[in-house]
């Protein structure tokens, strides 16, 4: 297990290097720069600015300089926001996004799995139809429509909740619900499908034949098998949801990380682009790694390569 972990971590580092390089190259390929504006800067000032941020160095030099800083986790200053470094941006934004994301994830997992089980246990009956109907809605209605709908209903019409901003428990409810709609729907459908598959298996028939009650059959025998595929979805889902959704955070004016993935590109804020991309990659790679390890514990048929049984 230790060997495997070390090998995986090394692989992660290599992957990160590739990602950093690709991002660096791509971002310098698009026209424009961080200091472009309609009111053009007088050339000497532009020169000075570029010099200060080393944007006048040859690209390869900028690249290695960046890597050297990256190794110390110094992501550099933001070109757009003078008062923050990229580390600041991530340190400020990630906890907020992660909190919102974590809550949405919790909702998705709890409701999604529950709904999926209910649907699979009542195949073709009204419970199944209701769950599938709601899942289709959650799947197809884009989060910004849900978000706007929630604000309209719960804030504007009913006045129950504040429309936006962040800080109080009431301000978490609508964004968390809007954010959780798609993953909940996805998990519900997935669980329903895997449960149906599992419930048709021979070993479930054996369990019934042993005289076990329905609860034991479903929760002890079926669920563990059915949840394995869901687990592998959780890896990328976690990474995506924890680093913030651009749309939901924008509509609810939540000071998270999500917006930076999009705005940094429009701003050509090179350091921020690199910083958030690498950060996201780290989270994603780690999440996948943890899922793989967890799998080895959950599914006895899987042996971690080279590990002991």
């Amino acid at each position, binding site marked *: 297990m230790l060997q495997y972990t070390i090998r995986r971590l090394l692989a992660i580092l290599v992957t990160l290097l590739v990602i950093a390089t690709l991002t660096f190259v791509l971002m310098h390929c*698009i*026209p*424009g*720069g961080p*200091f*472009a*504006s*309609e*009111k*053009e*800067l*007088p*050339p*000497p*000032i532009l020169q*000075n*600015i570029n010099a*200060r941020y080393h944007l006048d160095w040859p690209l390869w030099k900028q690249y290695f300089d960046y890597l050297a800083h990256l190794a110390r986790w110094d992501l550099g200053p933001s070109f*757009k*926001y*003078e*008062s*923050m470094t990229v580390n*600041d*941006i991530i340190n*400020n*934004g990630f906890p907020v996004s992660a909190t919102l994301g974590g809550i949405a994830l919790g909702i998705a997992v709890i409701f999604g799995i*529950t709904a999926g*089980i*209910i649907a699979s*246990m009542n195949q073709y009956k009204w*419970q199944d139809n*209701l*769950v599938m109907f709601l899942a289709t809605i959650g799947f197809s209605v884009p989060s910004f429509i849900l978000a*706007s709908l929630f*604000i*309209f*209903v*719960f*804030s*504007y*019409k*009913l*006045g129950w909740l*504040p*429309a*936006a*901003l*962040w*800080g109080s428990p009431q301000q978490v409810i609508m964004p968390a619900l809007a954010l959780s709609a798609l993953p909940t729907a996805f998990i519900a459908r997935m669980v329903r499908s895997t449960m149906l598959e599992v419930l048709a298996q021979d070993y479930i028939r054996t369990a019934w034949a042993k005289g076990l009650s329905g*609860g034991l059959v479903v929760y002890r025998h079926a669920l563990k098998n059915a949840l394995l595929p869901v687990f592998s979805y959780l890896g990328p889902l976690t990474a995506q949801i924890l680093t913030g959704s651009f749309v939901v955070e*924008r*509509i*609810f*004016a939540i*000071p*998270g990380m999500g*917006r930076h993935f999009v705005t940094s590109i*429009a701003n*050509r804020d090179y350091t921020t682009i690199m910083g958030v991309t690498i950060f996201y990659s780290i989270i994603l790679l780690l999440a996948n790694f943890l899922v793989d390890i967890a799998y080895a514990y959950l599914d006895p048929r899987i042996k971690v390569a080279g590990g002991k049984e």
Partner: protein
Amino acid sequence: MGKKSLTLLIGILLAAALTLAGCGGGGGSEEKQQGVPGTGGMAAEQVLTYNNGTEPETLDPAKMTGIPEGTVAYALFDGLTRMTAKGLEPAIAKSWDVSEDGLTYTFHLRDAKWSNGDPVTAHDFEFAWKRALDPDTLSEYAYQLYYIKNGQAFNEGKITDPNQVGVKALDEKTLEVTLEAPAPYFLSLTSFYTLFPLHRATVEAHPDDWANSPETLVCNGPFVLDKWEHQAKIELVKNKNYWDADSVKLDKVVLTMVEEESTYLTMWENGELDSIEQPPINDIPRLKQEGKLQIKPYLGVYYYIFNTKKEPFDDVRVRKALALAIDRQAIVEKITKRGEKPALAYVPYGIPDAEPGSDFREIGGDYFKDNDIETAKQLLADAGYPGGKGLPPITILYNTREDHKIIAEAVQEMWKKNLGIENVTLTNQEWQVYLDSRDEGNFHVARAGWIGDYFDPMTFLDMYVSTNLQNDGKWSNAEYDQLIAAAKSTGDQKARMEAMHKAEKILMDEMAIMPIYFYSHAVCEHEYVKDTYWNPLGPPDFKYAWIAKH
């Protein structure tokens, strides 16, 4: 087990919520808005919440360039002068003398304090201006100080001794400024944030981050920085050490950073925000009807640039024909809907002319008729393209945004209908790509917009001098250049204004650019919010604002 009940419960809750939403009127917002606005009765809580739109890039006045930043700057700092509803008022400078030749200004400062108790001195101004001009400071708006002797040279590194720059503190309370050339609008420039003073000791102690936190941000304006929650909000509280603290009624200003239009409109209608600017276009007719909208002046113009180096735009008749065939009234009424005025000239309303109380635009008048289809048709025929035939394909370039698209579509349609020009296409590009295209002359007709930096026609007319890098269309007229140079070299307002009117006439006669409308500022302010000054350069000023009983 609760499985069935759970599903049932969810279903009921959903149904209930939707039903409740369907019936019932406009929710809680109406109640909150009622309440007779007291005649001068001040509310117990003097807190104003305004949506500033986005996270400011910086709070260092020397480095900022945008309107959200400006809003905070006007609240935190006081310059030599301040622009208010009554016009330009003395601020830190209580009086000033101008030399005969208009080159030397002597400002006499009043007794004023920084937020930490230290006195505001002329040295603070000298330090701040030289710092803004210092190439190492990387101030993007340093060019605002180029009017000062050697300002540009110092900023461009041609001279390295800051003492050669024409600003000097003669003593604690006297600031002497020497200009390169007479510039009557220099006085109003002193109200602009790039020219604000800075607390020298603090800035020298924390050169890179003094403006990043309340602990180090020492200021001299109506408010001080209390909290800066990045991407969430900025909270300002009244500055007890402000020299004019008696005029400041508000105890606290909260600036939120909500970017999504529909969200901040909902928050305003809910009463969560006291005032907002630029509500979503589609809501404007309704807001107007409900009496919730106010239109404030905004010093800006929306126009299309012609690439005069490309056929057929090198022919003035073609340019004029295209410009005259547009129905601007229809555009502002049906598309933009924010109460804009059609632009039949280039320099917007709101700039004073030579006589006090006069307006440059009003005196200049219109240079052509709106929707003058007959003249347009004739001009096009004269140019050799009768009925629009024979024209090479025309592309209109704009940066990707819904409103630019709709306007471009309208123009395209108008050219087709009114002039018979079939071959017009639209191209949209991402902002920076679009800027590059304009810079490199990769366009036929490009959308542009310009907001003034100060209250003088020069901030607009300056751009179309042959040598100006911003002149993307590369139009060049020797007489225009001369007139502009003349206006820059004298202090005689009458002579200047005359020269600039003449210059504008040439610009319009040659239709180097095609003006479409003058910007306006649509704001929604609750009735109980009083005396906010909406500066036509963009940022609102809260120095004199207060909240009435409601």
